[in-house]
């Protein structure tokens, strides 16, 4: 299979994002049993760990990719790569904006209906708004990388 440097980079980002934040999501569900204050501390710690792990994994794998494709890494994509990245950014942006509107709506509803607050919920997740925004951002990134890969593959295999 003929894969360009930028497509390999998109694959690395997609796979690492899905794996790391999949682990994050699973770990997060385990925090609902903890007392609220301890849950908040653990959730914050988990968020920090996940972000750090993402930075390390992305940096290591992209450095390995650049070392094995030195010439392509120096070119750092051409006008077609930029065009594909632009289209993918549009797709990711739409998802991000949608999530932000949903979270804003939730915040307004909670402001006027305190009985729906997280503390009164049967499934309590510490810092739920932060996690919703985080997952919205991650989901938009997944859509962005997925859109990039889809466009590269579409060009490789036809419409």
């Amino acid at each position, binding site marked *: 299979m*003929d894969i*360009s*440097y*930028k*497509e390999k980079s998109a694959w690395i980002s997609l796979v690492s994002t899905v794996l790391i934040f999949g682990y994050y999501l699973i770990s997060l569900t385990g925090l609902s049993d903890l007392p609220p204050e301890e849950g908040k501390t653990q959730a914050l710690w988990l968020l920090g760990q996940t972000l750090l792990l993402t930075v390390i994994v992305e940096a290591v794998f992209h450095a390995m990719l650049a070392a094995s494709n030195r010439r*392509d890494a120096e*070119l750092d*994509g*051409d*006008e*077609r*790569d930029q065009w594909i990245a632009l289209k993918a950014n549009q797709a990711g942006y739409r998802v991000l904006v949608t999530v932000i509107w949903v979270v804003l709506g939730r915040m307004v509803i909670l402001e006027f209906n305190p009985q729906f607050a997280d503390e009164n919920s049967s499934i309590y997740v510490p810092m739920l708004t932060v996690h919703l925004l985080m997952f919205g951002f991650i989901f938009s990134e997944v859509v962005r990388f997925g859109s990039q890969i889809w466009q*590269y593959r579409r*060009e*490789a295999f*036809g419409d």
Partner: protein
Amino acid sequence: MTDYQIVNRVRELRFFADEMTQQALAEQVGVTRQTIMAIEKGKYSPSLEVAFKIAQVFGQPLERVFQYVPGQ
């Protein structure tokens, strides 16, 4: 209204340029080999700058490399 499409003779011109490789053309033009491949397949229409550079590599006027013709 007739739909038009951009077609090109890049593959043919590479053949007549002593079977120039896609990689060699890509390096001279400053794009990736996959972009040359996409242009040849008609999957990607290059910018004017890249189109002029491709024509320059083969020593041909632009309209002999790229044509805007009625589609099927």
